[in-house]
């Protein structure tokens, strides 16, 4: 399996994502500079977290126009799986690969902490090692993670089963108290209409080995490797 991690100016979870991929794949992914217009052959494209362009103007807005994104969009439309984590999710919405937007957290503050997620689907390349309705612990670290979409879009997302993860209580209950950032429907991650593009605010790459105090994130990478090898 060949994976590419896109590096934008201001990306800062690119190394973390590469470490997680390498651990799962047994080989290092290719790091691709945003200014390149050529993307090597890839079975998976990962847009990492960070603050591309400082998150100035709107998170992800400027990165969405980087030269490499034209190629990412083309590949995504041709079916190559794309995973956007945190800032990567913001870039995917700004680039139009996923619907909706990520707005300022309801608290208006940056939040870094572990949250519980309920796995809504286990039939995708990203989540096959999880079980539907399983509750996992994954950290978030963002200021703009409040997912918003118009009612029509939300209706489609819900009806087509395109919600990937929701913020939840330890027992899986979807409550306001478990919602860290005000996201509509406690949405933490969504798929595109072919379930090949996933955007999520939580950082699975930060909990992949016991020294980090948890491994719930590792299954995402092992799912991908098993499905895409």
């Amino acid at each position, binding site marked *: 399996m060949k994976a590419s991690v896109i590096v934008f100016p201001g990306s800062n979870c690119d190394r*973390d994502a590469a470490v997680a991929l390498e651990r799962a794949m047994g080989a290092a992914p290719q790091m691709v500079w945003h200014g390149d217009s050529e993307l090597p052959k890839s079975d998976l494209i990962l847009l990492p977290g960070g603050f591309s362009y400082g998150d100035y103007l709107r998170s992800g807005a400027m990165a969405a126009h980087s030269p490499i994104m034209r190629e990412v969009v083309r590949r995504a439309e041709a079916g190559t799986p794309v995973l956007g984590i945190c800032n990567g999710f913001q870039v995917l919405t700004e680039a139009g690969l996923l619907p909706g937007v990520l707005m300022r957290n309801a608290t208006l503050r940056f939040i870094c902490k572990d949250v519980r997620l309920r796995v809504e689907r286990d039939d995708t390349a990203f989540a096959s090692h999880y079980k539907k309705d399983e509750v996992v612990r994954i950290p978030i670290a963002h200021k703009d993670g409040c997912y918003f979409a118009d009612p029509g879009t939300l209706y489609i997302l819900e009806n087509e089963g395109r919600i990937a993860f929701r913020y939840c209580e330890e027992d899986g209950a979807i409550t306001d108290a478990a919602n860290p950032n005000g996201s509509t429907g406690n949405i933490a991650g969504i798929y595109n209409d072919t379930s090949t593009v996933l955007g999520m605010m939580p950082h699975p790459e930060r909990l992949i080995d016991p020294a980090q105090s948890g491994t719930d994130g590792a299954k995402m990478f092992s799912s991908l490797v098993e499905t895409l090898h």
Partner: protein
Amino acid sequence: MSGAADVKPETPSLSEELVAEHGISPEEYERLLEELGREPTLTELGVFSVMWSEHCSYKSSRVWLKKLPTSGSQVIQGPGENAGVVSLGDGQAAVFKMESHNHPSYIEPYQGAATGVGGIMRDVFTMGARPIANMNALRFGSPSHPKTRHLVAGVVSGIGDYGNCMGVPTIGGETNFDPRYNDNILVNAMCVGLVDANRIFKSAAKGVGLPVVYVGSKTGRDGIHGATMASAEFDESSEEKRPTVQVGDPFTEKLLLEACLELMNEDVIIAIQDMGAAGLTSSSVEMADKGGVGIDLDLDLVPMREEGMTAYEMLLSESQERMLMVLKPGSEPVAERIFKKWELDFAVIGKTTDTGHFVARHNGVVEADIPLPALAHAAPIYERPYETREKLPTIAPQDVTAPPSILSALERLIGSPHLSSRRWIYEQYDHMVMADTVQRPGGDAGVVRVHGTDKGLAVSCDVTPRYCAADPFEGGKQAVAECWRNLTATGAKPLAITDCLNFGNPERPEIMGEFVGAIEGMAEACKVFHFPVVSGNVSLYNETNGVAIPPTPAVGGVGLIANIAEMANMALKADGDVILLLGL
């Protein structure tokens, strides 16, 4: 260089007020005239004022700082460079330093704290290290003071936004409240970086005729000393010429970090220095002085953000996210390519010389021409008088009235701002980015894994100002000891400390007494523990209307955990475990 004729500008006699507004005393001015052999130009006066300032020259503290032990087999670089360096074994080293940004944070809490974090990270990556952990030690006024809430919110989000954007985890710190900080809050930021021990970069510009290179952001009128406004040269109606608050740009700093580390992989840098306080002046003077050479700057070549800036303003500007480097001749294109890739400014703005002078030209005029020793070594050093305050009486336990009930006492303690949870603060800091945080904030020390190894670096910031106020010597000792304990509590072997000595006005003997006492106490503890000081910072004059802050010698320690599998933490692990109380 343009080879411009050495035209000297008109040198009108500088008024006494102007000299005083530059913080130069009449005796210091006499000394300046002697060193220079003539009257300074306004630009030269500005240069002297920053180089001879307390901040740059350590004129009140230097004699006492010598008391701190600074050596040990683990020490690779003690005080004197941008940051201290200790060995971690296996050819790796930790680079760290703590610095204050107190006054700017009181004026504009968000930007002041943000630029403080930016500055300390530059100190660390200038040495070739990738920053891997940040800490911060904060002191605010009374929680009920009308300004406190605003200051806390601004400082915390400023620290968070800068560190988060840089992608460096903030893994701990400390926070105190005391009414004596009402008008003088303290914002001390610490950064720890990781470097290969054989790839450490320093600031001595050794060699003549070498290109002096400016990189990073453009220069604007940020943070220029207020005294400039008094000068007749400025048109007071011109709002645009007002010196302005420094605004941080963490995005540019992130690019600067990556570009510098990329260039450091090429073998072309002879010396590098970040532009911190007193920007272009102190960085070029320090590099030239350490290298034993002269330096010639052509200010026309400095990348500018605003039009019409004078030499004075350019030399004193504190615009952030800038670096000065001396390169091997001929390597400019290599460096330029890298900085252009990262979309940063790059300009050759001068060269090293054999004149032993600091020379700055602008528009064909020599605006400053000063022998370097006058700036670097002739700076006055004071042995200020000090008096040791009488010790406060010891309180005997039986004289203290017992609380009505243990439970209510406990409630009061837990509910007090001094002991309440700091989660509200550290959740605003990304403490997990880089994916190597193995002990998050909330424990005794933060711990990050040394990337790709089983080793861990434990970091802790400590001081209890209350103790220092009661007895500076014991308080200084205690700060070092607490830091030592916090590190050892994770299973780390403490290696060395950095410090940030925050005090009131040193011209008052009782304040100087606090300073002396705290240093002597710290020195004693450091000796006993073999816990040397490898870097640090002094912040004096933290007082308003005669009310000084409590003596606050913040200590930041770093320790090494050989194998993180054996690390200890605070969590109680299982029912039925035995709890032991150790110590006196």
